[in-house]
């Protein structure tokens, strides 16, 4: 089922005001309802190589694999949908490719990348991520961060070392605890949720969230909620107006219409009530 008339996808990646090249990569497939964003790290162009491999490899893998499975079927041993399992596998494949490229070429040694993937299918979403690129959802005018950063700072907040406010003063910023391509294997965080008409999903690199806070992101999205192209440009513009110290990337998906595989999808709800 094509999602072209049900989901509207926009995206911009920008090198910002300070860096001389862009190590972020973005990609999307409107038919599949797939969005991928990666923020590369590592010298000698390693960062841009790693993020480009990640986006290309994940998009290609899923473009081949997704049409071959029945939609929204649950894998009984893990409880995840088959879509989630394929996304996890695609990220692990990308990890393997980047790791091997770094092993084969000394100038790419140590390169890696964050990644965040969103897939919309059968009124559901799967979100997969590694590192500090994020996914937010705006529903009914409220913005919610759905991913949890894999950073030392977030780990310290979770363990009670800092309050969120204190963490902003920390000197240990920008240390990620997980990345794609750095080791021979990688752990991927997966989550599944229900998508509703009117939802906006925002994928972004830390070039956005280090420059502007969640309140401002929410304000911008509310102000431009009827014009997704302007919303996308404004998010990039505000990140640059607030310093633009890093590459900044934004991808947005809006649910125009619900997209169930079966028309009476709500009736699938379970038997425990009836």
């Amino acid at each position, binding site marked *: 089922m094509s999602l072209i008339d049900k989901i509207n996808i926009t995206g911009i990646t920008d090198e910002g005001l300070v860096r001389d090249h862009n190590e972020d990569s973005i990609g999307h497939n409107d038919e599949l309802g797939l969005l991928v964003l990666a923020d590369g*790290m*590592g010298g000698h162009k*390693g960062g841009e190589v790693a993020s480009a491999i990640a986006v290309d490899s994940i998009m290609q893998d899923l473009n081949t694999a997704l049409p071959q499975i029945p939609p929204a079927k*649950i894998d*009984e041993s*893990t*409880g995840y*949908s088959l879509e*989630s399992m394929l996304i996890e596998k695609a990220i692990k494949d990308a990890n393997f490719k980047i790791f091997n490229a770094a092993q084969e070429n000394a100038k790419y*040694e*140590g*390169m*890696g990348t964050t990644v965040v993937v969103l897939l919309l299918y059968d009124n*559901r979403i799967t979100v997969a991520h590694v590192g*500090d690129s994020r996914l937010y959802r705006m*529903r*009914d005018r*409220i913005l*919610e961060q759905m991913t*949890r950063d894999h950073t*030392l700072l977030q*780990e*310290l907040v*979770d*363990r*009670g*070392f*800092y309050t969120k406010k*204190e963490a902003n*003063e*920390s*000197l*240990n*910023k*920008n*240390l*990620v*605890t997980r*990345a794609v391509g*750095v*080791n*021979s294997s990688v752990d991927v*965080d*997966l*989550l*599944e*949720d*229900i998508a*509703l008409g009117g939802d906006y999903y925002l994928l972004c690199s*830390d070039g956005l969230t*280090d420059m502007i806070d969640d309140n401002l992101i929410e304000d911008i999205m509310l102000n431009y909620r009827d014009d997704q192209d302007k919303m996308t440009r404004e998010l990039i513009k505000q990140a640059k107006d607030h*310093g633009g110290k*890093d590459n900044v990337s934004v991808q947005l998906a809006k649910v125009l219409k619900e997209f169930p595989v079966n028309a009476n999808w*709500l*009736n*699938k*709800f*379970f038997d*425990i*009530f009836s």
Partner: protein
Amino acid sequence: MATIQISLNGTMESELNLDKDIITIGRKNDNDVSIDSLAVSGYHAQILTILNDSFIEDLDSTNGTSLNGKEIKKTPLANGDVIKIGQHEIKYINKNANSGDNFERTMIINTAEEGMQETEGSQKIDQSVGKIVAEIATTDSGNASQQQARIRLVSGANSGKELPLTKVLTTLGKPGVQVAAITRRPTGYFLIHIDGGDNGERPKVNNEIIGLKAHPLKDNDTLEVASVSMIFSFE
């Protein structure tokens, strides 16, 4: 590197570099900072240093630990902070602090065995990764999601019926009345409002209507979805 200066009645007694992950302070001799005073517990407090930042943590001492006059349990330290233990004052000095614009490139903390040998000369973090950092980076703090959970209906026609939450996303409710979902995320289980029927009403947790954001669930929370009560519990 950060240092601490230990003083009594305004006279500095000693100074110490924070070159270890953990510096302990207490009355007993095997502390890094040993203070011979009955007001000080055997192992009174510790200073944890994680890369550029340090934290003071009271080790359930009898008389407590204060920071700039306020009693604390565990809190980050800023340059110039004064810790008070018994009558002793410990001043924290970190010249790196307040260095203004320290926006750095994102770096990867690589704690895997295979990666550790190659850190030199690459873009990976060039500081030796301390024990605490390595531990934090490799253990998952959000391990609530590893636990199996279930819901048990406690009202309505199916009262007593149990449902193990084997799927990552489980939908509950009656279409047109109220629909919600329980989702298992890497950080734990959450209840999500999906559809409130004509009047848009959201489900309740422990008799309170939940917000529009995902609501984290705790063991033995009582949920109410489509007028049916159920208890969420870990196995």
